[in-house]
Structures are given as structure tokens and as C-alpha cells.
């Protein structure tokens, strides 16, 4: 495929509507079942779930609004940068656009991810345990799993809000800046960003809820995501080339999101992985041995999230609430 200026273009995947459709379908089925069960009060306990869910949304409404507004930033940046670029340079290449967006999304996800985990998931259950809220709820006709899942649903709702806001901002920013010729490209990028965000936030929700259910102190529950997200990739990056191993990156979630971003948006990687590639090219050795395809990463993240949700639920069912 040749682009407008005659360069060979990487073969970008078109937006994976099937994957998108499956994810949206699953979410819609959940919402539909939930709505029917809630409205008809088929199972009384599900109403308790909704009571917790609605309360958590109300409690977090300021935080949710702030995070949703922050999620618009990538779109605003893209709009401003590319408006400036087209004014100064008269135009830009879609490859540059993809790489740039990939960088922004990686950077955004890294900090938003940590902030989201700290603000919502990894401290939520611990705080409820520490300040006696959970104990108080348990004295009412509310079961432990209902409390946990009421909260998880509110976190998932927040994740959807963030993902939609981020994708919409990029879509609108892109449509305002780019030539209408690229509308399909922009739709594809916005769609993939939605998928990456939703997968990232689902995984971070699962990790945060797990840490929050297992630990009693907020310090560890906050430190672990920061370690996995920021410190671990940095440590791996600073290891001498000859002893460097990529396997610790399997525990670093920024790696997965970068890889998805690379596979779906830029194909060159956004941050860390592109540095590795630069290293390997420079030294003429192939040090980047973790070649996980996008579908592998999606599967890993979904299986990990489901497993962590199940473990958290089972753990909270059996553990003492001080």
C-alpha cells in the first residue's frame, strides 16, 4: 500500500468490528438482563446489588465527572497539535498521525490507569473495610458478593464513561482536523482506542478490586499497581542488554496496552517497546522476544480479569471484615 507521498505504508488492520461487536454484544446482554431482573424484581437480592451500585455512583459522581473530562484531553491534544501542524507545514502523513496518537494514548493510559486504580478500585473496598461501612452493610440484608459486585458494576460504568469520552474526543478532534478522505482511518483509530481503553480499564478494575479485597492496608494496594505499571518496565529497561529478559514485562500491564496500541494503531509501538526495537536495531540483535499477538493479549487480559473477579468474590465471601 502506497500513501500520498509515495512511502510504503504499513498494512494497518481495519477496525475489528467483529471483536467490537462481540464486546458490545456482551455488555448489552448484561445490561439487558440486569434491567429485566431489576425491573421485574425476579430475584430480590439483585435489588440490593442495584442499591450498592447506585449509591457508589452517587458517591463517586464528582470523581467520575473529573475522569470523564480528563479523558477528553487526548482528543483536544490531537486537535490542537494537528491544527498547528497543518497551519505550519501545510499537511501531515497518516502514519505520523497513527504514531503520534499511539504515543498519546500510551502516555494517557499510563497515568490515567494509575490514577483510576488509586482513585477508584484499589482503595474502594479497603476503605469500606477500614471505616466500618462494609461491616455496617453486612448487618443489613446485603450479602458480601452483592456489595462487591455493586461496586464492580460502578467501576465498570466509570470505565465505559472514560472509554467513550476518550474515543469520542479523538473522533471529533480527528474529524475537525483531518481531510474527510481519512474518515475511515479516524473511525478505525477511535474504535481501537475504545477497545484498548475498555480492556485496560477492565483489567485495572479487576486488579484493583483483587488488591482491595485481599489487602487490609491501602499502601500496598496502591503501591502494587504503580510498581507493575511504572517501576517494573523501568527496571527492565535499565537492565544491561546481555542479561535483559522480557518475561517480567508479562506482569507489567503497560506492556500489554502498548502492544495493543502498536498492533492496532501505530505498528511501531508507542513507548517502551519502541525503545527496545530501537535498541535491537542498533545492536543488530533480537532482544525483543515476547511476540504476543493482539488476540493473545486480549485473551490474556480477559481471562486474567475474570479470574481476579472470581478470586476476589470468593475471598471476600470467606474473609473476616474487621
Amino acid at each position, binding site marked *: 500500500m502506497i500513501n500520498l507521498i509515495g512511502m510504503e505504508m504499513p498494512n494497518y488492520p481495519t477496525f475489528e468490528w467483529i471483536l467490537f461487536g462481540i464486546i458490545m454484544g456482551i455488555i448489552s446482554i448484561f445490561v439487558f438482563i440486569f434491567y429485566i431482573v431489576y425491573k421485574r424484581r425476579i430475584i430480590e*437480592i439483585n435489588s440490593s446489588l442495584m442499591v450498592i451500585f447506585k449509591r457508589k455512583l452517587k458517591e463517586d459522581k464528582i470523581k467520575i465527572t473529573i475522569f470523564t473530562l480528563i479523558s477528553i484531553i487526548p482528543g483536544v491534544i490531537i486537535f490542537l497539535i494537528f491544527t498547528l501542524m497543518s497551519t505550519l507545514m501545510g499537511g501531515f502523513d497518516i502514519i505520523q498521525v497513527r504514531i503520534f496518537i499511539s504515543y498519546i494514548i500510551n502516555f494517557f493510559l499510563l497515568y490515567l490507569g494509575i490514577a483510576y486504580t488509586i482513585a477508584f478500585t484499589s482503595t474502594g473496598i479497603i476503605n469500606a473495610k477500614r471505616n466500618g461501612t462494609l461491616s455496617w452493610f453486612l*448487618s443489613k*440484608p446485603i450479602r458480601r458478593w452483592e456489595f462487591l459486585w455493586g461496586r464492580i458494576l460502578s467501576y465498570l460504568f466509570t470505565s465505559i464513561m472514560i472509554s467513550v469520552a476518550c474515543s469520542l474526543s479523538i473522533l471529533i478532534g480527528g474529524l475537525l482536523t483531518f481531510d474527510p478522505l481519512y474518515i475511515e482511518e479516524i473511525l478505525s483509530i477511535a474504535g481501537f482506542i475504545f477497545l484498548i481503553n475498555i480492556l485496560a480499564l477492565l483489567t485495572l478494575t479487576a486488579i484493583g478490586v483483587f488488591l482491595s479485597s485481599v489487602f487490609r492496608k491501602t499502601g500496598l494496594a496502591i503501591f502494587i499497581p504503580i510498581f507493575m505499571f511504572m517501576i517494573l518496565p523501568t527496571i527492565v529497561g535499565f537492565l544491561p542488554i546481555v542479561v535483559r529478559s522480557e518475561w517480567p514485562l508479562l506482569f507489567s500491564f503497560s506492556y500489554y496496552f502498548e502492544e495493543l496500541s502498536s498492533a492496532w494503531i501505530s505498528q511501531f509501538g508507542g513507548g517502551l517497546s519502541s525503545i527496545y526495537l530501537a535498541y535491537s536495531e542498533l545492536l543488530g540483535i533480537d532482544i525483543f522476544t515476547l511476540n504476543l499477538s493482539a488476540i493473545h493479549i486480549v485473551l490474556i487480559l480477559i481471562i486474567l480479569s475474570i479470574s481476579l473477579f472470581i478470586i476476589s468474590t470468593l475471598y471476600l465471601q470467606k474473609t*473476616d*471484615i474487621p
Partner: protein
Amino acid sequence: MMSDPIIQTFNLTKLFDQKTLAVNKLSITVKPGIYGFLGPNGAGKTTTIKMLIGSLFPTEGRIEIFGKDALGKDIADIHKRIGYVPENPTYFMDMTGEELLEYVGSVFKIPQQKLISRISNLLRLVDLQDAKSRKIAKYSAGMKQRIGIAQALINDPDLLILDEITSNLDPLGRSKMVNLLKGLKNEGKTIFISTHILPEIEKMEADSIGIINQGQLILEGSIKELNEKLGTKIIKISPKHDLLREKLKHYALNIGETADELIIESDNPDQVWKIVNRISMENDIIINKFISSGLEIEQLFMKAFDITKKDIGVENK
């Protein structure tokens, strides 16, 4: 009249981290009325309450509430009939008092119309009508405890479990709380209240008490039963005469005095009366007052600890 126990625990034991024994084979029986669950700080009262409400799992033992297994499938049914007020309530500070009650009502799925009238009645009961639209964060400690009582009563529970609710209150707040609880008792509710402030239990006219120390039950029963069990009486004698004090000190477990009375603690009041009678006859002392009564809760509490020290070697902290 015999009535079915509301709460019964059987050898309830809680061991934290395989080493700290917080509750040790605790078997208590709570009948309708007010039950004072007494003990010093760290005795295991809150741990016991957390096991009753299902927040902590017992290491061993059984709990029955309303005759049902409180650790089994019936837990949700039991909780529909319970109201709980924690020691340090951290209710949703962003809510107003009225919103909190509405929220708790929705937890119990109380129909809207019924809920509105119940909220109005409860706010009147706890004297918070004027503060109903104020954020809970701005409530005083006493108001927080009172809204705590209101939220615990929203489902019209048969059993109220109160954990040290008066410890943060000023004397006026305590007095209001005592009157409130006495009123609730008269409405037929069973109140299980843990505290280390004994005069309040006395003022509440508790039907029975359980005294706990280091996780073990030391004494349990009504004040009358415990007095009979201990056999100790408090005798007030007036005038306080040095001769009486001198002679009686050999027959008293404890001897004290007020401005015009001698206070004798004795397990044999008849003998004390005989001695007082003899001395008064021989020395022409006119006895104005000789009243023998049972121990008050505070005295029972101290006595229980004395006995425990002697009999089972439990040291009071």
C-alpha cells in the same frame, strides 16, 4: 413468664491470626428486654458483636438469633429483623440525615409511602427534625449517634445491637440516649448494648447483664439473680459511729463511709445486724438507719472481677 431467647451463642470462640484469642467459649443468652454486655476495653465485646452481625466468622461455636442459625442460610432473613449501630459510625457523610434514612429504607425495600411516614416518625423520635436537611458531616457526636439509632430502627427491628454508643456522648447526650432506649424497650424491642460505662446500664434498667473479660463470660443474669448468686449485700448504717466501724470491720468484706453513713459490704447481713444491735444496746447508740440492699451494677462488676481473680486467675487489666 418464660420467653424464647432472642440471641444465644454456644461456645463462641474467635482466634485472630492463630494467636490472639479475642473471644473464648462464650455462651450467652439474651432474652427480650435490655441486655447489658459489659466489660473493660479490649474484653472482646466488639468482636462478639461483629460475629453476631455476620462481619466476623467465629473460629468455633454457634450463634442463634430468633432461633435461627445466624451463620447459615437464614442470615439475610435474620438481618431484616436487626438494627445495628456501630461504635464509631461513619455513615455517608455527604448525605443529609433524611437522605440516609431514605437510603437505608431502600436497602430494606420499604415501600415509598410507608418509608416517608416512618422517616418522619423516626426523626421526631430521635429529635432531629430540625437537622434533617443538614449534612451528616456537620452533625455533632450526639446527633450522629441519634441518626445512627434512627437508621437502625428504619426496618422496625425486633432486635437492636448497639456497640458502645454512649462512649462519645456528653452527659446530656447520654441522658437523652438512655431515655430513648428505655422508650424502645417499652415498645417491645430487645436491646443488646455493649458498654464499659456502667451507670448507664443501671439507668436503662437493664433486664439482664453479661460481664465479659479477656473474651470469657464471667457472670450473666438479671441483677437480682446475680445478687443472689454472689450473696453479697450492701448495708447502709446511720449514724456512723467509730465503735460500729471498729467492731464491724472484722465481719465486713469492705467498709466505707459517706458524710453520715457507714457502707458495709457483707455476705452475711444477719450477723451484721446482730452485731449492730448488740453494740447499740450496750452503748446507747440510736440506730437511725439500717438498710440492706443488693449490689448495684458497678459493684457487681467489680465483685465479678474480684471473684474471677481469685477463682480462675483472670487478671483485670
